[in-house]
């Protein structure tokens, strides 16, 4: 096996006295989609924020073999890590195009026009809305903009926190389609979802998280067939 893209070893995060993530270890190979599924409050968002460096977290984090656990967010972005957060965190009073341009901030102006072309090709909707303020977009468009802004920075590992949250089923389908396209274009993806059914369908490998800990892991299709997963997360129709 080649060097893992991301290697998290016994990472813990606390909010005050409450330990929201407890000694989580996680590993992903380059060019794959890995998903972390789990109920609301399991600690998935906390885990991604800690990997990104937004939250302080004891434990080791190696990205492409390099120890990033002491790095600031900016340095991790520079190394090729990128998070599309649950709340999107767009620059709402700025135009769609400015949001995208800022996504390439650390790459400099040379990367902007090429990046814009690629992103507009993937999300034609954003091109139509390029002059509009980000705050005026619909939920689906915001998610597209958040993903587009992340892609402008040419990440090697893209972390998506509930990309389907609050979106209409048709748009959810689009988003998952784009996630698969991104993998095909060489971006590794760490996907956090409550929509376990869709996540397990696109992922190569999966982890199940329950109250702060990883309780199960395995190839995505194996987990999708596991009775315990079916009962807790896929159920009758599961979450859609």
């Amino acid at each position, binding site marked *: 096996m080649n060097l893992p893209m991301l290697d998290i070893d016994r990472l813990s995060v606390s909010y005050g006295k409450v330990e929201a993530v407890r000694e989580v270890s996680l590993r992903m190979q380059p060019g794959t989609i890995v998903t972390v599924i789990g109920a609301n409050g399991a600690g998935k968002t906390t885990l991604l924020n800690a990997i990104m460096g937004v939250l302080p977290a004891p434990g080791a984090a190696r990205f492409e073999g390099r120890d990033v656990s002491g790095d600031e967010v*900016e340095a991790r972005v*520079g190394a090729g890590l990128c*998070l599309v957060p649950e709340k999107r965190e767009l620059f709402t009073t700025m135009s769609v195009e400015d949001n995208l*341009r*800022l996504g390439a901030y*650390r790459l400099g102006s040379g990367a902007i026009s090429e990046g814009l072309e690629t992103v507009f090709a993937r999300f034609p909707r954003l091109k139509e809305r390029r002059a509009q303020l980000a705050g005026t977009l619909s939920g689906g468009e915001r998610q597209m903009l958040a993903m587009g802004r992340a892609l402008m920075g040419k990440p090697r590992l893209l972390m998506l926190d509930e990309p389907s949250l609050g979106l209409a089923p048709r748009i959810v389908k689009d988003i998952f389609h784009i996630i698969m396209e991104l993998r095909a274009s060489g971006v590794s993806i760490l996907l956090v979802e409550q929509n376990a059914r869709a996540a397990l369908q696109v992922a190569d490998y999966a982890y199940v998280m329950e109250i702060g800990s990883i309780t199960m892991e395995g190839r995505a299709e194996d987990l999708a067939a596991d009775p315990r997963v079916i009962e807790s997360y896929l159920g009758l129709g599961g979450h859609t």
Partner: protein
Amino acid sequence: MNATIALYLAQDGIINGAIYALLGVTLVLVFAVTRVIFVPQGEFVAWGALTLAALDAGSVPGTAWLLVVMGIAATVLDTLRQSKTITLHAIGGMVVKDIALPVLLLLAVQAIAPGKPALWISVLLTLALIIPMGPLVYRLAFQPLADATVLTLFIAAIGVHFALIGLGLVFFGAEGFRTTPFIAETFRVGVLAIKGQSLAVLGVTAMLLAGLYLFFERTMLGKALRATAVNRLGARLVGIPVRSTGRIAFALAAAIGALSGMLIGSLTTIYYDSGFLIGLKGFVAAIAAGLASYPLTVMAALGVGLLEAFSAFFASAFKEVIVFSIIIPLLIWRSLKAPHSDEEEE
């Protein structure tokens, strides 16, 4: 009151209002980027005027020494704060940038000042001395508190204000000074005598406001500052170094403060503590605009300037009282309009 006097007061009001507009806009800018309500802004105004006055008189301004002191303090404190992680390389960088450069500048000023340099050289020297103080103040006082609440930052800002006033007294003394005007002529338009310096104030203000507009609308760096203001986490996630955007905001604050001081230094006598009242009027304008809107801040600042000029005529003893009293109805109106704008969570 007749029309001539009214025109005269209006001229006065607009000139002062222009300065308040610059300071108010800077306050809005610094607050948006760093969430610091920058009370000590006025000190840069006083130091700008006093530095220019000293150079005018052929002496070495206190700010030349002060910059060295601040650079040493910042280097020592940053080294202590990060004593575990800091590299020798980073310390070397600070020694060069924050100590060696200010020392060179001090030597240059000592060489140039006795020859009473031309006005434009003095202006450039003043800017070179004061602009770096903005980021230094940020590093010394606010950067370590970057995640604190607005209230904590405000209290820190008040502390910095008193510290800077004290330093001003030490380095400039209690005596007041005036600078030579940029434009010494007076122009007559009908009955009205317009001071050349008034035109300089308006011209420079208009250029600065236009420059700020272009900076924020057209440049990547300006947009990065706005982005930091709109969504700090979002800015960090795209790799904008939010610490350096804070430093840039403070550099702009120092630059605009110093320029304002140099502009009004010939219209009124400036003492080491004169900046506070001037800055406070910019503050009134910024508050009136909800610490949020640049155009509203400019309009409110002109209003404050006019109100001040006319109340100086009608009730000169109460001039300041009247100006600062309007903040009370303004605040009430604001709080009624936006009852939930206490503390935004990050």
